[in-house]
């Protein structure tokens, strides 16, 4: 599917990314170029091939024992917040 401005708008909305209208055309062109390039993968026969989402998959990882370890970052974390309300993070209303 060719990438046009409407697709750029749609995925930008999904990614919560403001794209200036003057930039939309350029992003569309660039993405279209990159996606055109990756089309070459369609030529490969990958039937029966397992996907690799992690090269270390299959190694049995050590899970974490269920033991509490308190962290001391709270004050620093709250102090670094763009906006706080007492001990809460504060954001504009959701709706």
């Amino acid at each position, binding site marked *: 599917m060719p990438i046009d401005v409407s697709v750029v708008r749609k995925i930008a909305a999904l990614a919560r990314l403001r794209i200036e209208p003057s930039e939309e055309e350029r992003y569309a062109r660039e993405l279209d170029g990159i996606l055109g390039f990756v089309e070459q993968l369609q030529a490969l026969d990958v039937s029966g091939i397992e996907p690799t*989402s*992690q090269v270390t998959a*299959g190694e049995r990882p050590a899970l*974490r024992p269920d033991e509490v370890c*308190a*962290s001391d970052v*709270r004050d620093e*974390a*709250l102090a670094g917040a763009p906006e706080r309300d007492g001990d809460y993070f504060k954001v504009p209303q*959701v709706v």
Partner: protein
Amino acid sequence: MNRPAMSATDEMRAKYEPVIGLEVHAQLKTKTKIFCPCATTFGASPNTQVCPVCLGLPGVLPVLNERAVEFAVMTGLAVGATIHPRSIFARKNYFYPDLPKGYQISQYDRPLCEGGGVDIYSDGEKKRIGLVRIHLEEDAGKSLHPEGKEGVSTTRVDLNRAGVPLIEIVSEPDIRSGAEAYAYLTKLKQIVVYLDVCDGNMEEGSLRCDANVSVRPRGQEKFGTKTEIKNLNSFRYVEKAIAYEIDRQIALIESGGRVVQETLLWDSARNVAETMRSKEEAHDYRYFPEPDLLPVDLEDHWVEGLRETLPELPDALRERLVREQGIPEYDAEVLTETRSLAAYYEEVATRSGQPKLASNWIMTEVNAVRNKTGDTIDSFPIRADRLGDLVGMVASGRVSGKIAKQLFELMLASPDGPEALVQKHGLLPIEDDAALRALALEVLAANPGPTAEFRAGKEKTFAFLVGQAMKQSRGRAHPEKLQAALRAVLGEAAS
């Protein structure tokens, strides 16, 4: 948005079959969160149980809590699900202020457990509700929307709950009514509480439920369009909301309308379901395998080891009580409400040697007190061995039913056993012939009228005299022996 109140008539209802599936989120009773070692204590001060990982700071990584996997597998085993040797965590991407990473770590196309089911009773008939899957995921934090002044609109975020482990239990669309949904939830809760993997506390959000509801003309195979109801904070709300939504959909179709696929919020104050403000775009969660966590590979022997540690589950326990103790199915159902109640019962029954009498005492006296005080069986003041002794004393005639109830009241407030209390409060039965004879003489002397009536042949008066004598003895007189003594004395005087 308000919707017109619509209700269906019985005639309309008869034409449609409701189809309901439930998605239940159960919070696992682990000490720590699913991907970090923060505590999960309910009700802690805002943002105190947080660390770089659950705050979603740049650079941190999730590390899977072994106990959470254990609890999820135990639940799967308990409902007869297939436990997959490999399952995969996936990221569910969406933006929300209480979702610190911008994605929720959940499971998608490779869940931990699939299949299985639970049995419920519907109109007295046993019915199996199938399960689609059980998967592990992390909870989000809490967004609070304080009622602000006009024009002031902010949201406050507390991330204590972010990363608390959940299992999502998805049922097949096998449920046909609000009442069945209620029975299913009750059963599910009973199972997770038996397993001790969830505290089952709906008020604290340890169990949450969303319902998918549709209706179809009876006989039609194809499902109707479904709606999803959220915000169901108690089992009763689930039942009510489903009944409401079934009726709304039937009435809508009957009036020529069409059900629209949407998400509804249940308003428990007004008993209506309302459309959630619609999202600006369709959901596109962009699931993909979580690269920071490796696949969860379970070895057979580990799973089998867990299976062996599973406690006896409610169905098995109920059947065993019926079989071993010979009590009615109904009693067994009541007594297996929780594992500890059943254990309590078993001790009382064994100690007293009186399974049915023990059941009666627990179902009436014990449960009456617990209903009043809100005690769980674990916090109930009378120990099982003591109650067993009391039931045994009743059965052997050591105390009368009346004295037994007095003793029960005393035992509620005293650490002493029934025998000690009998001694302490002078509640020993009067069984001695001479004492009973003296008592009989005293009662006849005090009641010359009724005595004369009896002697004149009015047999009915005898019961009155027995009652008086019993009262005089404060219930301690041995009933049969007392009657014998009374008859003896009445007979003597007449001759």
